[in-house]
C-alpha cells in the first residue's frame, strides 16, 4: 500500500514541521526571558516547571497534607480522565441519537430543540451549583456537568449533519428496497460520521477544561482539586506543572481522536 505509506510519511513530516517547533521554541524562549525580570513566586522557569511535573507525577507528598486523597498527579489525572471518558461516552451517545432523530422526526425536533438551544446559549458552568446540591461533592456532579456540555455539542453536530445530507442518497436506497434499519446503518450513520466525529473532537477538547473546573468547585480528587489546593498554597510552579500535564494529556487524546476520524472517514476528502 504505497498510498498508506506516503500519507503516513506526510503525517510524520507534518509533526516535524520546523515552523511548528519554532512556535514552541519562541514561546519557551520568551518565557525564559521573562523569568529574568519576574520573581519565581510570580513566574517559575520553564525548566523548573518541567522538573516539578516529572517529580510530582508519581509522588507529591505535600498534596496529602492539603487533603487530596491521592498524593500524586498520576492518580488524580486518572480520576479526571475517567470522569471525562464516562461523560463523553454517555453524553455523545445521547447527543448523537437525539440529534439524528431530531433531523428525521419533526416531533422530536420540536420538543428537544428549545431545551438544547437554551442550554447552548447559557454558559453550562452555571449549572454546577445545582449539581453540587443534587449530587454532592464527588464524581456524579462533575460527570453530569460535562455530560450536559457534550450532549449539547453533539446534538447540534449530529442534527446539522443529518439535515444537510442530500436526500438523493436516502431516495436512492429506498429504490433499492433498503429496510428502515438499513437506511439508518448503511446511509444515515456512515454519511454523518465524519461531521459528528469532528463535533466529538470539539466536545472532547472542552470536556477536559469543564471537568477540571467542576473539580475545582467541589471534589476530593482530580486535577481540578490539585489546582485548587496549589492555588491555596500559592505555588505557581506546581499549578503550571499541573496545567502542563492536563494540556499534554488533552493534546495526546485529541491526536488519537484525529487519527480515528481520519481512519473512519477515508472516503471523504483527504484530511489535512
Amino acid at each position: 500500500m504505497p498510498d498508506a505509506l506516503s500519507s503516513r510519511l506526510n503525517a510524520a513530516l507534518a509533526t516535524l514541521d520546523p515552523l511548528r517547533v519554532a512556535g514552541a521554541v519562541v514561546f519557551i524562549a520568551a518565557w525564559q526571558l521573562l523569568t529574568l525580570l519576574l520573581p519565581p513566586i510570580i513566574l517559575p522557569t520553564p525548566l523548573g516547571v518541567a522538573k516539578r511535573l516529572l517529580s510530582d507525577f508519581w509522588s507529591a507528598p505535600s498534596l496529602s497534607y492539603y487533603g487530596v486523597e491521592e498524593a500524586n498527579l498520576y492518580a488524580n489525572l486518572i480520576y479526571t480522565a475517567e470522569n471525562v471518558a464516562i461523560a463523553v461516552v454517555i453524553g455523545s451517545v445521547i447527543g448523537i441519537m437525539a440529534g439524528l432523530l431530531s433531523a428525521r422526526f419533526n416531533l422530536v425536533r420540536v420538543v428537544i430543540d428549545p431545551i438544547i438551544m437554551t442550554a447552548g446559549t447559557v454558559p453550562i458552568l452555571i449549572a454546577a451549583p445545582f449539581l453540587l446540591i443534587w449530587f454532592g461533592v464527588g464524581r456524579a456532579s462533575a460527570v453530569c456537568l460535562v455530560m450536559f456540555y457534550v450532549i449539547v455539542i453533539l446534538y447540534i453536530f449530529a442534527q446539522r449533519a443529518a439535515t444537510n445530507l442530500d436526500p438523493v442518497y436516502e431516495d436512492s436506497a429506498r429504490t433499492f428496497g433498503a429496510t428502515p434499519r438499513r437506511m439508518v446503518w448503511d446511509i444515515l450513520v456512515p454519511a454523518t460520521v465524519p461531521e459528528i466525529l469532528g463535533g466529538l473532537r470539539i466536545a472532547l477538547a472542552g470536556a477536559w477544561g469543564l471537568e477540571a473546573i467542576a473539580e475545582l468547585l467541589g471534589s476530593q480528587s482530580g486535577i481540578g482539586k490539585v489546582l485548587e489546593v496549589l492555588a491555596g498554597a500559592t505555588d505557581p510552579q506546581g499549578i503550571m506543572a499541573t496545567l502542563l500535564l492536563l494540556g499534554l494529556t488533552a493534546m495526546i487524546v485529541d491526536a488519537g481522536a484525529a487519527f480515528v476520524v481520519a481512519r473512519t472517514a477515508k472516503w471523504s476528502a483527504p484530511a489535512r
Partner: protein
Amino acid sequence: MNAPNTSRMIELVHVNRSFKRADGQAVQAVEDVSVAIREGEFVCLVGPSGCGKTTVLQMVAGLLPPTSGEIAVAGHEIAGPGRDRGMVFQKDSVFPWKRVIDNVEYGLKCRDVPAAQRREIAQTYLERVGLAHVAKAWPRELSGGMLKRVAIATVFANGSQVLMLDEPFSALDYVTRHQLQSVLLDLWEEGGSTARRTVLFVTHDVDEALALADRILVFHSGRLIDDLAVTATRPRTTDSLLMPEMVAIKHKLLAHLGLEKPTAPLKVARS
C-alpha cells in the same frame, strides 16, 4: 387488473399530483395523466422544465404518492418504492462512503444475495460499463461521467424490470453524454429484444430522445400533450436522425417546446 398483463408494464390511470407551495398556493404539477407502457419499451419523457416529467417519474418510482389516480407496474398497483423499479437520479446518487464495487452491489445486498454471488454480478456490470479497473476506488476519485456509469451499472446489476433515469446525462459534456448513451443502449439490448427492460428516460434534450427512444411522451404544464412513436431502426446513427420521419418528429418536438411555429414541420416533412 387481476392477472398480471406483461404487455402493459406500466400503467397510469388519471394520475394527478399537486404540491403546496411555501406561500400556501396549490400547484398542479401533474394533471390527469393516463398512459400505458409496454414491456421492453424505451420511453423518453420530454418537455420544458417544470412540466411535470420528473414528478411522473418519482411517482412511478414510488418516492412520491399521487394525489389521485392509479399507477400499476406489472399489473400490481404500487405502494412505495420497490426492487422491481430501479432509478438513476439527476444528481450523483453513488454513496461516497462506499467503494465503487460496494455501491454496485448495494441493491443486491438489500435483497440478501450471497456475498460471493453479488460480487460476481457487480464485477460483470462494472466491466460492461468499462469501470472494472476502478472497482476498489472511492467515488470521490471518479469523474462525473464515471459516477454515472457506476449508477447505471448499479441499477442493471440489481435486475429491476423497470429502469427510470431522470435527466441522467444533463450535466455531462457532449462526448461523455454520447458515450454514456451507447453504454446505456448496449446494456438495454444485451439479452436480445425479448429480455429488454422497460425504460423511462426523462430528458429535455430533443436529440437525445430521438437517439434513444421507441416512444416519446411530451409533457406541458403537467399534462401529457403528445405521444410519438419513433420507428427508426437500431442501432441509430447520425444519419438516422436525418431521415425525413425523424426530422418530422424533431419539428413536432421543437414546436411543443415553443421553439418553432407549429406550421413549419409539415412543409419540411413533405418536401
